[in-house]
């Protein structure tokens, strides 16, 4: 099970609205190499991992990726806070806004919705670890 801790793993205090940057950063939320995909990748793979050390690290990193996702979402939220109609149109954020307003929705920068096809989970430790290294190589 999981418990929520009411703080960001790293603080986010953005004071200037910038929907143009938000449209790029959103890929780190719901894009192919984003935090949501990372978390689901590790948390899905761990059940068939035959080594306790690796099951442990998949669980703990999969959990931490959720905290990273929250940081990214806070960044996007703060970048689009208090958006004016002029900023909306000028930045191109209107295409996102028409479907989601200022709500957070996991998609890539190009507008593709988040999908489970962004990761693989095969039950073979070498295969899965290769997938993890390709996706998030600096950690595992």
């Amino acid at each position, binding site marked *: 099970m999981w*418990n*929520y*801790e*009411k*703080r*960001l*793993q*790293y*603080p*986010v205090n953005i004071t200037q609205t910038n929907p143009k940057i938000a449209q790029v950063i959103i890929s780190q939320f719901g894009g192919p190499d984003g935090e949501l995909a990372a978390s689901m990748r590790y948390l899905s793979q761990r059940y068939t991992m035959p080594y306790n*050390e*690796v099951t*442990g*690290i998949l669980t*703990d*990193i999969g959990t*931490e990726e959720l905290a990273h996702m*929250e940081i990214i*979402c*806070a960044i996007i*939220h*703060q970048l689009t806070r208090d958006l004016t109609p002029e900023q909306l149109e000028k930045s191109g954020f209107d295409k996102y806004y028409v479907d989601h307003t200022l709500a957070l929705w996991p998609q890539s920068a190009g507008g593709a919705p988040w999908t489970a096809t962004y990761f693989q989970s095969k039950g073979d430790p070498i295969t899965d670890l290769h997938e993890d290294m390709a996706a998030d190589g600096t950690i595992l």
Partner: protein
Amino acid sequence: MSEQKPCRSELLEWINIVSFAVDDVKLFLDTHPCSAEALEYFEEFKKQRIQALKEYAKYYGPLTVDTASPCSDHWTWIHEPWPWQKGGC
């Protein structure tokens, strides 16, 4: 005996620091479960984190369910700002 109220932002920064230390050494311990040095580091920062979370809850409301005080007469969890909001953590 009067205790001085800690600075909110400084205490929160300290919580973030010690929590990151705990998170990071936890990952190291997953694959190095017998490292005496890492175990000692974990114990030290875990202690500091628990202490800081208790201190924060006492003055500024709970950040965790374990530090949500049973003595208060109302549920403060939803009153303090959420982490992505202005004035949040």
